[in-house]
């Protein structure tokens, strides 16, 4: 359900694997690599993960979604390695009986992922590269 992958499946396949007879809604989020950042042309991104902990933290997000919305049908795939401009780096799929829950859970999951899942991206430009740091929350336990 929660995976660090080299290649992301398409969202229809992911959704079909989790949807049940009671579900009427699928909400998905896909992160795609932008061609520019702060005015600089991005060539591609390189993602690195702490895979064991990343899966554990994505599973925790799944538990939080289950606790808040009662939904057990969520999938997250995050790529590592090189991801080119226009390609998908992360996909979150939530299926639910009702659409408001699907949207809320999906949006919660991507926001949470960006805070607690140990994955880092390096932006590669024509003239160099840089590790991107998320918002700092020093030594906090998220």
């Amino acid at each position, binding site marked *: 359900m929660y995976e660090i992958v080299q290649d992301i499946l398409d969202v229809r396949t992911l959704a079909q694997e989790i949807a049940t007879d009671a579900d009427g809604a699928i909400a998905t989020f896909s992160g795609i690599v932008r061609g520019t950042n702060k005015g600089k042309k991005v060539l591609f991104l390189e993602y690195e993960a*702490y895979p064991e*902990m990343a899966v554990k933290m994505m599973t925790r997000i799944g538990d939080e979604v289950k606790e808040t919305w009662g939904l057990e049908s969520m999938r997250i795939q995050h790529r590592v390695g090189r991801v080119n401009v226009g390609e998908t780096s992360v996909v979150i799929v939530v299926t639910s009986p009702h659409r408001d829950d699907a949207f809320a859970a999906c949006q919660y999951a991507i926001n949470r992922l960006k805070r*607690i899942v140990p*994955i*880092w991206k390096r932006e590669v430009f024509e003239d160099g590269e840089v*590790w991107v*740091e*998320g*918002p700092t929350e020093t030594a906090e336990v998220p």
Partner: protein
Amino acid sequence: MKVRVRLFAALRDVMGPDLEIELPLGTTVEELWKRMVADEERLSPFADAVSFAVNHDFVAKDALLNPDDEVAFLPPVSGG
């Protein structure tokens, strides 16, 4: 006791991915980090900017380490 230290992103660029470190019993995760920063000048830019994880979970800075723990010092994450 011995612990394993894993490093990622900019920290890995400095230190490599993986270390084994011998520590006295009763060492906290923050004490280990301070010792590493003291030993390696190139870690100093990150001194106040890491989160601590032990055995794949975030921990508070005063968490005591145990033999064979897997410790990680995490720069602010930027996935998504």
